[in-house]
């Protein structure tokens, strides 16, 4: 995958990659998602991928919405700051959470870090492959390293999450 490293401030000057990666996806529910594109944001010489078709929380979770179901994971920035993930405690099936509730834990470098549910809803699926291979969270945080899926209790909450541009701006403020 060709990699763009941007030196200038990201929020207004980022460019899409010349090579598109990921898949084009669309949803039947009143919205068409654009083809997945990767934006790279350079903060302190590190490159973090921020796919344009996802929403993000300030706790560094991403969310992919498809109809009334959402898939949730942690961002490239988050996995980089955590280090190699060795263990994941995922929420139980059918567990219900309110927006920003603590819903699980990731362990990396002898540090157990809480993960938070960015939306209210019920857990409908867990990524069981992470039990055997938690490193997927580092190597494929937006695809095979997804954490769990939630049936949305309040779809309006999605609009208050950050889009890719907003998340990049948020990341710049972190560093």
């Amino acid at each position, binding site marked *: 995958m060709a990699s763009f490293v941007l030196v200038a401030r990201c929020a207004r000057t980022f460019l899409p990659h010349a090579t598109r990666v990921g898949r084009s996806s669309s949803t039947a529910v009143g919205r068409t998602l654009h083809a997945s594109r990767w934006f790279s944001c350079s903060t302190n010489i590190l490159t973090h991928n921020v796919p344009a078709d996802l929403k993000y929380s300030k706790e560094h979770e991403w969310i992919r919405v498809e109809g009334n179901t959402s898939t949730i994971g942690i961002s490239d920035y988050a996995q980089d700051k955590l280090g190699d993930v060795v263990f994941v405690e995922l929420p139980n099936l059918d567990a219900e959470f309110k927006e920003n509730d603590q819903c699980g834990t990731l362990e990396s*470098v002898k*540090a157990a870090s*809480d993960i938070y549910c960015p939306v209210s809803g019920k857990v409908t699926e867990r990524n069981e492959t992470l039990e055997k291979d938690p490193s997927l969270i580092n190597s494929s945080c937006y695809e095979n390293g997804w954490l769990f899926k939630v049936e949305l209790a309040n779809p309006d909450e999605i609009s208050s999450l950050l889009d890719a541009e907003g998340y990049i701006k948020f990341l710049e403020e972190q560093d």
Partner: protein
Amino acid sequence: MCVGRKLVILRNLGRMSYQQAFQVQKLTSRQHLKELAKKDGCKGLDTLLIVEHPPVYTVGIRTAGYPPEEEERIKSLGADFCRTDRGGLITFHGPGQLVAYPVLNLGHFKKSMKWYIERLQQTVIKLCDVEYGIDAHTTEDIGVWMGSKKLCAIGVHGTHFITTHGLALNCNVDLKWFNHIVPCGLEGKGVTSLTELTGREVTTTDVLQPFVKCFSEEFECDVKFEDSSNMEEVLTVIKQAVL
């Protein structure tokens, strides 16, 4: 973003049970979280808790490897047993071991658990080098090592980048306690202490000041000692800290 040098309060809790020290950590951490949630003008104080525990074995969030039978076996050795929310596997804490629990808002430092762990490791490595002329090091296994023997274990928890738990540095602890477990789940590795490595008695009291100096250098902060002999007063001060 912080302007000027950060301040960390040092509280030496003396000899205290694991559970009670954990309550002090939780109280301190809760103040940080209330400040983050902008509740009632609460202020979290970056705090370095120093403590020595009576004999206790603790395990982290990966508890599947330590079922009730294993817990009973370990308790029969005469030590306490606690399941915790930190990273890392099983370890031992006891007299002669300097245990440090930094309860920090990493937002005042750097919001990265990887960075935080590296600072803790470097604090101890620097201490060993400067104070004892010991060339301790890191390996692919987190902690501070001398060859294949672990000198200092590390295991932490982070919630909204507020840290709890920390590190345990073997000063003159009886290393035989470690014989009954596979420390940190690492087969074939041993443990050591500053006493064993230097060939002379090194107590937690000897180590405290140089440890704090190295901590302040690694975290680029000033450390202010606060008298913590009256625990009731300590808990009141923590709960009442406001912006």
